[in-house]
């Protein structure tokens, strides 16, 4: 009986130690935010293939400003691309405009806008892009691979400045209208920021 009692008491103590030591309380002080960054590059009076760019300073975003000293980890999750307005020189019908591909790049820069060597990342691409499918819709979301998202994030922690590049290929088809008066597009990018 005495042994049984000792065993029960030992079990009580052991269960308590195991139960309480498994608590994840340290995680509760982590705050994980998501912020959206938007780009409005304008491709204006140019022929394809060519690119449009949009410069971004994360300091323009309150969430970043409020937390930049405490950022422990950051990651690009995904982004959405859409076309808001488009016009070719000869008013080509939207349904007829098909790009062989549209590629998206991120280039990190200094505060002066100077490119940081070796800091150009391809975030994703759309192939055989029918403009009519991308016209004012929300359905074209590209997930950024986590390895790439993490790699860029290391850089974001050191510089909040970057350029988002949209690279338009040539158009599909013969005798198409390659000159655009404008392509007004919009990107929303979601960043995950972990702070302590």
């Amino acid at each position, binding site marked *: *009986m005495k042994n049984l009692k000792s065993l029960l008491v030992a079990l009580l103590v052991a269960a*308590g130690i195991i139960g*309480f030591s498994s608590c994840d309380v340290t995680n509760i002080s982590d705050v994980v935010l998501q912020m959206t960054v938007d780009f409005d590059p304008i491709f204006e009076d140019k022929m394809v293939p060519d690119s449009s760019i949009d410069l971004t300073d994360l300091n323009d975003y309150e969430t970043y400003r*409020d937390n930049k000293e405490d950022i422990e980890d950051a990651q690009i999750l*995904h982004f*959405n691309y859409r076309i808001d307005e488009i016009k070719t020189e000869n008013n080509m019908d939207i349904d007829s405009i098909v790009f062989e591909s549209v590629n998206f790049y991120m280039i990190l820069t200094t505060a002066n806008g100077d490119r940081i060597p070796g800091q150009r990342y391809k975030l994703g691409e759309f192939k055989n892009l029918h403009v009519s499918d991308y016209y004012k819709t*929300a359905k074209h979301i590209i997930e950024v691979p986590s390895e790439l998202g993490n790699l860029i994030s290391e850089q974001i922690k050191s510089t909040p400045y970057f350029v988002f590049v949209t690279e338009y290929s040539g158009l599909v088809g013969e005798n198409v209208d390659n000159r655009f008066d404008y392509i007004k597009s919009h990107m929303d990018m979601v960043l995950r920021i972990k702070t302590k």
Partner: protein
Amino acid sequence: MKKIIQLLIGITFASTLSFTAKAEFNKDGVLEVPGDFNLFTSKNLQGYTKPLFTTIGQGAQSNLFTVASYDESYSIGMDFSLSSTLIPGSQQVYDAVLPAAFGDTNRMDNAAYLNGKIVRNVGGTIEQPTIYGGASNAIYVVAPVKGGDPADSIYKTIAFNEGTNITTMASLPAFQLVFGLPTRTELRFRYLGAPVDDQMYSHLAISANQQLDHWMDLFDESDNMALALNVSYQFMTLAKTIDMNSWAVGLHFSKGFGDGLSVYGGLQVEDLSGTFNMVRQNGYNADYYEVDGKTLKSASAIPKEQQLNYQAHVAARKDVETNPFEEVRYLKPLTFDIESFTSWRFTVGGAYEYGIMELHLDMGYASQMFLNGGIRLRFKEWGNSSASAE
């Protein structure tokens, strides 16, 4: 000890009070929160934090009793216990309320990226992580589909706070003073006070246990069994920001096996309610608005003594004027009713008494499964016909 208490309270309230260190109490004792909270409306913050308040409430109503047999004597003692909860999957998500226009395909188009899949035109509510959950799901919002201004705030992509991926959580430690009365009654008092910034967090609990079985001759004395009633009332306050109270009523039963070893169990109903009040920095003041509550008055219509605050409010609004939630756009207060998922619990445990000391450990089934353990010391007992434990 003070540091430890501060740390424990800080850990428990970290997510609700300290998203960033920039949150601070204003002169009225209301917590002013920074832009991080622009991801939240009051309703969504309520959903996000409800599991945390459940943990706090469950912890507060834990360790109200152990063995149901109470001596016919006066006694003084103390009890210290810790409580840990297991967070169920259902409390790792909540239904976040979306802005009114979301899902109205005549006005907008949107898409959420959920588990690698694109879901179109979500409206009403969408599942998002609570404070204990995982990744959140942003909703991409695009151009007005039939007219409208693209700059209209309903067309902005929105993101939500993520959770902390917690499956087990400690609650606040409970330090109690325990008094026995000859009526086979036990009174327990619990107080925890600690400064949070320049305000005081206070938690006061009073509970009573009354043995019942001897009035009804339910058990033979030699069976070493007992049945008792337990009731408890507690309140917790933090300046004008947190005002919550909690009650519990239950019955508990125990059986002793001699040599100080006992098992016990109980069924308890309980509730936690209250209010959580915060304001957004440079927030809403009805005096700044016309009667429609949405149109800002001109600066000339604002009294001179309010000019500085008015200008700060106008500047802050510029930062959030494209937020799709009206409450955020107008920097209205973040206020919600505190609630708990737990309304009842079943507890089973064991205790071992040795001299003036009793070790106790119990576990229970409630909305959050819990483990609670501690030690009770009975310093002095008198007025009893049985042996004194002094």
